[in-house]
Structures are given as structure tokens and as C-alpha cells.
């Protein structure tokens, strides 16, 4: 094997290494997953006292014990907490076929990490929670922002003075004022004035209508805001295209719309991608502002955990999740950029 590698060109060597490492990781993870204690095993760990309380709860209207079960790929975590006067607390971590008490030391930290990560990812929560909310909001806002931004950029460059001034004012306004305030106004003030409620836009039977309503408001605010930023990106990209391209299109008889859609915009897309990627990352982080309208993104959840548990460890999974999201999307944007540069 070693000899074979030596004869390969450098990139193939690297690729071979990467594939090797990934394969090992997958295999190890697979094994660990397979031998991970089951949910039943974990829940059976509860002490006798706790078991008793759980049993009591079954017949009571006011239940006392919270059972938490978080499974995260190769590791799982289970805790039992009773509320009220006498609080009991038991924590267990399951890993590699064994169950550990997670009251102190490495097991405690591991347990916390699993629990924090699980909560930040929004596992077991509604569709609009944690990492899911962050990603969906960011992706949709970017997409709508680019579309709106393109229209605004064309509007701003248009010869129609009213349209152009309007777009200019729009851009100035939305870039010039904080997103947080825009969010407030759209979620709280607009329904007040117009006499509707965001959650009424969804079925009354829907348990999650409040969250969906808030999400819709957030999406609108973020898209309107991002539209203003993207407008400047799109305009810069369009204006960076050699004037000769427009002239050649005109000389061939194409009108403004045709020249734009067939010649200028396709070429400018490549130049938009790096700044749009930037904007994406901006939105990713601005997404934490949704805390103002009752939604929870990764940052809000980690802030909450920090406030209630007073532990800074919570920022470690948060940073890791952010770096992974940023990394993955930067990679995707690079791929798209490369795809659009095929002709260069």
C-alpha cells in the first residue's frame, strides 16, 4: 500500500489519506453506535427512590420528575430531576456499551456537552428551534434577499427616477437602521396596526402556530433587510461587468431586459458569490436577534443555558456548531463559485 501511494500524484495521496481517515471514523462510529446502551437501559438506571417517584407520578395530576433522554450518534445522556421542595438529581452517560454516573469529572462534562449540543441542535423540539431555525432562517433569508436585492439593484440603476429614488431610499433605510428594531416593528407593531396576529396565518389546530408565526415575521424582516444589503452586492457585481458586454448585446439588437438576463446577470453571478457568502454569514449570526420575538436560535439557547446553569462550557458546543455551519456553507459557496467560473 505504501509503495502504491508513493507513485501517486500529490492530490491523490491527500485524497487517499482523507478517504482513509473518514473510513476509519465511520467504522469506529458505526461500532460505537451499535454498542451504545439503549434508551431502556439508560432509563432503567434511575435509583429506587427515583423509580418510586416516577411510579407515583403516573397517578398524580402534578407530576414531579423530569426524565431527559438525549441520544447523540455515539453517546447518550439520561437524567432524572425532581422538582419541588426536595430536589433529586441523577445523571448518566452511556458510551461504548457502558453506563457511567455523570455527577462529576469527565463523565459530568461529557454529559453536559451531549445535553447542550442536543438542545442547541433543537432535537426533539419543534421544527423551528435551535440549529434548525438558524439554518432555515439563514438560507431562506439569503435566497429571498438575493432575489429582492436583484430587483432593488435593477430598480436603483433604472432610468425611472421615481423607482430609482424609491429603491435608493429603501436601501438607505434598511441598511441604516438596526435589524433588531426592524424585527420588533414587523413582529409587534405591524400586526397591531393592521389588526391581525401572526399565528392566525396558520391553522388554529397547529400547536406550533405561534412559533411559525414568529418565524414568518422574522423571515420577512430578515429578507427585507438582507435585500437591502444584497442590492448593493448585486449592483456592484453588475457594474463590474465590462461595459463592452452591454454594448455588444445592444449591437446585436437585444433590448435592456434581454441583455440583462442573458448576458450581464449570468456573468455577474460569479462575482456576487463571495459577498453573498459574507452576507450569509452575517445573517447566520444576526439570527440570534430572533430571541427578541420569542424564537430560539443556537446563541439564544446557549445564552439561556449559561444564565440558568452558569456554565461557560456551553459555548464550546455553540462555537463548534457555528464553525461547522460556516465551514459547510463556505464550502458550498466555493463549489458554486467554481461551477460558475467554468468558462474562465
Amino acid at each position, binding site marked *: 500500500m505504501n509503495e502504491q501511494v508513493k507513485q501517486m500524484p500529490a492530490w491523490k495521496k491527500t485524497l487517499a489519506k482523507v478517504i482513509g481517515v473518514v473510513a476509519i471514523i465511520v467504522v469506529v462510529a458505526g461500532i460505537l453506535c451499535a454498542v451504545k446502551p439503549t434508551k431502556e437501559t439508560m432509563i432503567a438506571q434511575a435509583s429506587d427512590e427515583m423509580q418510586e417517584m416516577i411510579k407515583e407520578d403516573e397517578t398524580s395530576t402534578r407530576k414531579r420528575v423530569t426524565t431527559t433522554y438525549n441520544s447523540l450518534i455515539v453517546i447518550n445522556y439520561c437524567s432524572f430531576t425532581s422538582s419541588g421542595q426536595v430536589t433529586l438529581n441523577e445523571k448518566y452517560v452511556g458510551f461504548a456499551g457502558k453506563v457511567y454516573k455523570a455527577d462529576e469529572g469527565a463523565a459530568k462534562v461529557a454529559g453536559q456537552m451531549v445535553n447542550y449540543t442536543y438542545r442547541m441542535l433543537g432535537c426533539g423540539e419543534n421544527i423551528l428551534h435551535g440549529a434548525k431555525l438558524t439554518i432555515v432562517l439563514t438560507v431562506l433569508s439569503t435566497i429571498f434577499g438575493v432575489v429582492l436585492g436583484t430587483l432593488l439593484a435593477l430598480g436603483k440603476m433604472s432610468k425611472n427616477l421615481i423607482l430609482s429614488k424609491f429603491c435608493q431610499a429603501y436601501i438607505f433605510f434598511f441598511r441604516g437602521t438596526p435589524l433588531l428594531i426592524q424585527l420588533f416593528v414587523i413582529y409587534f407593531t405591524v400586526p397591531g396596526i393592521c389588526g391581525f396576529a401572526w399565528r392566525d396565518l396558520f391553522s388554529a389546530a397547529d400547536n406550533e402556530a405561534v412559533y411559525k408565526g414568529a418565524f414568518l415575521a422574522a423571515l420577512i424582516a430578515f429578507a427585507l433587510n438582507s435585500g437591502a444589503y444584497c442590492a448593493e452586492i448585486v449592483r456592484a457585481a453588475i457594474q463590474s461587468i*465590462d461595459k*463592452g*458586454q452591454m*454594448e*455588444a448585446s*445592444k*449591437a*446585436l*439588437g*437585444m433590448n435592456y431586459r*434581454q441583455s440583462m438576463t*442573458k*448576458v450581464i446577470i*449570468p*456573468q455577474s453571478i460569479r462575482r456576487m458569490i463571495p459577498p453573498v457568502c459574507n452576507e450569509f454569514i452575517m445573517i447566520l449570526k444576526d439570527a440570534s436577534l430572533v430571541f427578541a420575538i420569542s424564537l430560539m436560535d443556537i446563541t439564544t439557547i446557549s445564552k439561556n443555558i449559561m444564565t440558568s446553569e452558569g456554565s461557560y462550557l456551553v459555548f464550546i458546543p455553540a462555537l463548534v456548531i457555528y464553525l461547522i455551519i460556516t465551514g459547510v456553507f463556505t464550502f458550498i459557496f466555493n463549489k458554486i463559485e467554481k461551477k460558475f467560473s*467554468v*468558462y*474562465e
Partner: protein
Amino acid sequence: MSESYEYILETEHVSKSFGSLEVLKDINLKVKKGEVICIIGPSGAGKPTYLRSLNQLETITSGKIFIKGDLFLHREKDHTIADVSKAQRKALLLEMGMCFQRFNLFPHKTVLENVMLAPITVKKEHPQQVQAEAMELLESVGLADKANEYPSRLSGGQQQRVAIARALAMKPEIMLFDEPTSALDPELVGDVLQVMKDLAAKGMTMLCVTHEMGFARDVADRVLFMADGIIAEEGRPEDLFTNPQNPRTQAFLKSVL
């Protein structure tokens, strides 16, 4: 449209200013169908501006432009006095094809797509039909084998020939060339000039701004010498090159020949 006309292209008292800079001053020109006209002159003379005014890439300040005998545009002091209907305007503009100094091929489209784009989008012709014609045109400029390459993979000379094919795909009756060879390495100039010569031989009406005196001498029916926004001298190439009358022409020819 009047089908019988004496001049395919005619300009009367055409002037053009950029702000306070008067670039064209009262240019009069009558072009017969099939004529090949070369425009020479020092830089700053306004040669490309004149070409660009013809196909409306620049709007003239005042003067009249006739295409195929029709009054296409009449402006005075930056106000339009008369022009044609929008549909007619589009039709008449399509009679003119243009090639640029820097080619201006569409970099994101292959050579074939470059040639096919305008007929399909502007004339709404059938793609298959267009493709067949485009391949023929590429054949005629000697680039059929590059049909699926992107322009960036081509040499400057090849790019310019594609640009010519692209303009011809709209089947114009007049071709405007703005220094088509001046951005090319000297040994690549020949191929482009050959394509232009073939075009002239087929009877295409051509207006060509050029620094290639040899080409002008060989192909042109008439040579215009422009300087400071006016046509300072014009004549048959054999007369103008060998026996220029205007002292400015003499000085210019001395510096470039």
C-alpha cells in the same frame, strides 16, 4: 420601408458632444450598398464615436441619419426632432452588425452559443435552424472546430473571427468594424483581415475604422481621413495614400507608414 434607395446609409450634419467636448462636428457621408469604406485618423479624432453613433450606442447631438433611404433619426441640439417607430427602429438597427476592438464575446457562453444567442432571443428563430446556420458561419471563418470552446480558450484572432460570425448571424446588410485588429498580436492580424476581405468580396457594405493601411489600400472603395471630429479628406485609397492633399493627412501618413 422604402425598398428602392440610392444610399444604404447616409448621415447629414452629424455632431456629437460629450459635455463641452465636441467630438464629431458636422459629418456628412453617403454610403452605397456594397461599398467598403475605411476610416483612418489620429487618436482623438472621433472615429469610433462616429461608428457608435450610427448604431445608436451613442446618441448624436444633432444631425440626420438615414438608413436604406428612411430618415432614421433627426436631432437638433440634443432634442429629437423626428425618429421612426419602435418596431421599425429595431428592424433598421438589425441591418447593422458591429465588431469591437476588444471583441466583447460573451465569456460565459461557448463559441457556438455566442453566435446563436441573438438570432434566438431577438429574432425568435428556431434553435435548430439557428445552430445549422451558426455552424456554417463558423466554418466560413475557419473555426468550426472551436464551436464548443469557451472564448477564453481562444487566441485574440480567433475571438475576433467569432465576433464577426456572431454579428453576421443576424444577417445585417452593413457591417461596422472598430479597429478589429488593433488588439491582436501582429501575426494573428492576417487571419482576421482575410475574413474581412472575403466579406467585402461577397458584396457586404462595410465601414471600418482601422490602422491597417495595407488592408485599406487593398480592399477599400473609399478611405476617409478623420481628424478633430471632421472628415478632413476622403478619396480612393490609391489617391489618398500616394498623394494626400491635406497637410494633416500627410503628417499622419508619414508617422504610421
